[in-house]
C-alpha cells in the first residue's frame, strides 16, 4: 500500500513537472521587461504613485520609484495605469455540469485529475483572474484535494501552481444523502449472489461528524470502510502528515463547531467556507486566526443579492457577514456563490464598498488573502520582488465607476490586451 502511494506521489510530481514544462515552454526566458510610470498597488501595504516594476524570466526583480532599468530591457510605458497583482479565484469546479458519482470518502481523489489543462480560459483571464483554486464538489463529505492552477489563456497551457493545495471537507447539508453508486464487488452468480454495493455515507450530519471524528483519530478505524477504502485512508493520513489546510464547507453553528473541533484535534490549519452562522464565532476565529472563504450571492447583473432565511429566522446572508468579518480583521477571501460569477471577481468585491470598506482591503480579499490561505504568498498575490509577474493593468476612464482592465500579464507575458 505504501508502495502504491509513493507511486502516486511520484506520478503527481512527474505530472506537475510535465505540465510546468509545457506551461513554461511559452513563458519568456532570458528577456527583461520594465513597466514604468504606473501607479502600483503592491498588495502588501505599499502604494507607489508612479513606480517601476522590473521583470526577468517572468519573475518580478524590483519594484519602486527609482529602479535602475538595464538598457537592454524592453520598456512597457504604463503611464496612467493602475497595476494590481493577478486575481485569485478561491473556489471553483471548472468542470461544467460535473456531478460526482463517487465514494463519499475519497481523499485520494485530486482535482488535477479533472481540470483540463489544455482548456482555453481566456474569459477568466481577460477579467483579471489569472489563477484559481480548483476545488472539489460539495456533494461528498470528503471529496478530495483541490489544486491551485495558473489559468492559461489563448495559446499557452494552464499549469499547476500547487498540487494538493488543500483538502476539501463538506459538513453542510449538501454532503448528506449523496447520490448512490452501484459498484458491485463481483459479478453475480449462483455461488456468489448479488451483494449490495458500497453504500454512500453518510445520510445525516450526525453520521458525518462521527465519520470525521473517527477518521481524524491517530489510528483510522477498521471495519468495512477500511476494507473498501484502504488507499483512501492511507492517503488521508498522508495529507494529514503533510499538514494540508482543511477547507471545510459548513453553514450552521453546529457544523462550524464541529469544524473547529476537528481542526483542533488534528492540529491542522482550518479554512471555513460558506459559514452563514459565523457571527457567533467571530471571537474564536480571531483568536485562532482562521480565515474564511466567503461565498456571496452578489451578481453583476443588477438584481443585487437576496437575503436567504434558513431555518433560523435571524440568519444572515453571508453577503452581510462579509463586511463584519473584514472589519473584525478576519482574513476573508471572497468568491461568488455560483461559478458563472467568477470572471466578475473585481466587480463583486467592489460591491462591498457600499458598506464602507476600503477598496484596497477588498482587492486584498482576492489577491493576497487567498494566496496566504493556499500557502502561495511566496509566488502570487502581491507585487513584490521574487514573485511571478502576474500583473493587471487597470485604467481609470471618464464615466466608468470602476477602473477598466486594459492588459493582463501572466509570468511576464502580455496574455491579453484590449
Amino acid at each position, binding site marked *: 500500500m505504501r508502495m502504491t502511494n509513493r507511486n502516486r506521489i511520484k506520478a503527481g510530481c512527474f505530472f506537475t513537472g510535465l505540465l510546468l514544462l509545457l506551461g513554461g515552454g511559452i513563458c519568456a526566458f532570458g528577456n527583461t521587461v520594465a513597466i514604468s510610470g504606473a501607479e502600483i498597488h503592491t498588495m502588501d501595504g505599499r502604494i507607489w504613485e508612479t513606480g517601476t516594476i522590473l521583470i526577468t524570466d517572468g519573475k518580478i526583480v524590483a519594484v519602486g520609484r527609482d529602479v535602475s532599468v538595464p538598457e537592454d530591457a524592453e520598456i512597457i510605458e504604463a503611464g496612467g495605469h493602475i497595476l494590481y497583482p493577478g486575481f485569485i479565484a478561491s473556489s471553483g469546479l471548472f468542470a461544467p455540469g460535473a456531478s460526482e458519482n463517487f465514494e463519499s470518502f475519497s481523499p485520494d481523489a485530486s482535482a488535477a485529475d479533472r481540470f483540463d489543462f489544455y482548456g482555453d480560459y481566456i474569459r477568466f483571464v481577460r477579467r483579471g483572474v489569472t489563477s484559481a483554486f480548483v476545488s472539489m464538489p460539495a456533494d461528498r463529505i470528503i471529496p478530495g484535494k483541490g489544486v491551485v492552477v495558473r489559468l492559461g489563456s489563448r495559446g499557452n497551457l494552464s499549469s499547476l501552481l500547487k498540487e494538493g493545495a488543500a483538502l476539501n471537507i463538506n459538513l453542510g447539508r449538501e454532503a448528506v444523502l449523496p447520490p448512490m453508486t452501484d459498484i458491485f464487488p463481483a459479478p453475480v452468480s449462483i455461488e456468489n449472489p448479488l451483494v449490495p454495493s458500497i453504500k*454512500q455515507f453518510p445520510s445525516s450530519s450526525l453520521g458525518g461528524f462521527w465519520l470525521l471524528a473517527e477518521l481524524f483519530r491517530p489510528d483510522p478505524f477498521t471495519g468495512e470502510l477500511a476494507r473498501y477504502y484502504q488507499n483512501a485512508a492511507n492517503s488521508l493520513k498522508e495529507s494529514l502528515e503533510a499538514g494540508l489546510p482543511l477547507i471545510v464547507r459548513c453553514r450552521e*453553528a453546529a457544523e462550524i*463547531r464541529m469544524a473547529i473541533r476537528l481542526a483542533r484535534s488534528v492540529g491542522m490549519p482550518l479554512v471555513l467556507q460558506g459559514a452563514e452562522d459565523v457571527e457567533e464565532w467571530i471571537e474564536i476565529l480571531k483568536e485562532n486566526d482562521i480565515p474564511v472563504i466567503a461565498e456571496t450571492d452578489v451578481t453583476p447583473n443588477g438584481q443585487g443579492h437576496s437575503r436567504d432565511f434558513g431555518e433560523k*429566522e435571524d440568519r444572515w446572508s453571508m453577503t452581510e457577514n462579509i463586511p463584519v468579518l473584514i472589519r473584525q480583521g478576519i482574513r476573508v477571501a471572497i468568491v461568488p456563490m455560483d461559478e458563472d460569477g467568477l470572471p466578475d471577481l473585481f466587480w463583486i468585491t467592489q460591491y462591498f464598498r457600499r458598506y464602507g470598506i476600503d477598496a484596497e482591503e477588498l482587492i486584498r480579499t482576492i489577491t493576497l488573502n487567498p494566496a496566504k490561505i493556499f500557502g502561495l504568498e511566496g509566488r502570487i498575490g502581491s507585487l513584490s520582488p521574487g514573485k511571478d509577474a502576474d500583473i493587471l493593468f487597470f485604467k481609470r476612464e471618464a464615466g466608468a465607476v470602476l477602473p477598466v482592465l486594459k492588459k493582463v500579464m501572466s509570468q511576464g507575458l502580455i496574455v491579453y490586451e484590449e
Partner: protein
Amino acid sequence: MTRWPNLAARLLSAWFVLAGICAVAWGAEDTFVIKGAKIFTSGKQGVLTDAVLLIENGRFGKVIQNETGLSVPVKDYSGKTIMPGIVDAHSFVSAYYRLLENTDVITSDLVAGIVFDPSGPEAKHALESGITTVNLVPRSENLVGGISSILKLDRESRSLSFMKKQAFLKISFNGEAIRSDREPTSLMGAEHLLSRKLESMGVESGRNREGIFPQKGLRSLLKGDLLPIIAASDMAEINTAIRFLEKWRMHGILVGGEEACHLSLVLKEKGIPVLMSPILSAYPDRLVVNAARLVREGVTAAFVSHMPEADPLSLRISAMMLCHHGISQEEALKTITCNPARILGISDSVGSIEEGKDADFIVMEGDPLDLGSPIVAVYVNGKAVFTKGN
C-alpha cells in the same frame, strides 16, 4: 519527593483562590432572593406560599422566612407562581433532520449531542415554554439510533452545556424502525437482528466485522455503561422490549408506551419506567385513560415531547389532562419535572426546587397547569435566559 505535598497544597490553595474569585464574580451575577411567589417545589416541601427563596451561585439555597439582613438583590414575584424547569426526557429539539443516519440499521456509535444547535429557533421555542433540560435522542427510524445526550437549554452556542454527554442508547422496536425495503421487515426480525449483533460483539473483530460502524455503543451496552431507552408503543412491541431486557438482563426505559398500562403489573415488578408520548400527539381519548391508569398503578412515568414532532406546550397540556382524570395536581406536575429527572438519573441536580439543586425554574402568571397563565421568565442556573417582553 517531600516537595510534592506542599506543591500540591500550593496548587490547591491557588485553585481555591481562583474558585473564590470566580464565585465572587458569579455571585455578583446570580445570587439573589425571590419573594412573594407561590412555589411548586415538586419535592418534599410540596407547595410553599409566599416563602423567600435564596439562590446563590446558580443553585437553590435554603428557604427562609424574610430577606431582611441579606445584602443580595431581591426579585419580587408576588402574585406569580414558580415551578421547577421542565425536564424533557425524549426530544429531537433543534437537530431533528440531523438525528437520523440511514446508512445502517444499527448505528450505535453516533452521539446525538454533537449535532445540537443551541441557537436554533426550536431550542428558543422550547426554552420559552419552560423546558430547561432535554435528553436529546437519535430518531426512532433506526433499530439502534445511537447514544443520547442530556443537556441544559441555555442559549450559549459557543460550547454545549452537557449534563451527560453519553446518557442512554436509543433502541427502537417501533413501527418506524420496521421498513419493507430493508432488514428488518418485521418485529421479530428486528429483535433477532439486534440480539445476533449483540451476540457477535464478543466474537467478531477487525476485518470480518460487518457494516461500517465499530458499534462501540453496543459494547458499552453489554458492559452496562449505557442503559437502553427503548421506543415501543403497542402491546407486541412492549412485550418484545420487556423480553429483550429480560433476555440480556438489563434495566431499561420504555418510551412511547401508549398501551403500556395493560402491562403495568409487569412493568412495576420489573421496575421499568415509561416515558409517555405527549397526549396531543395521537388519539387523546385512549391515551389519556391509559396514561392516567399507568400513573395510578404506580409505574414511574413521565411525559415527553418528541419535539419538534409535538409542540413543547404539549407537556404541560398532558399533565393538565391527567388532572382531569383524577390525578392530583402535584402528581401531575411531577410527571414533567421530577419523574423524568429521576428516570434520567439526574434528579440530584434538576427536577425539583430543593436546596443544592441547579436553579432552573419557571415564573408564571398563574397556575402552572393552566395554559391561561403565560410564562413570565425562565431561569437556567440562576440566569434569566428568557424574560417576557424582551
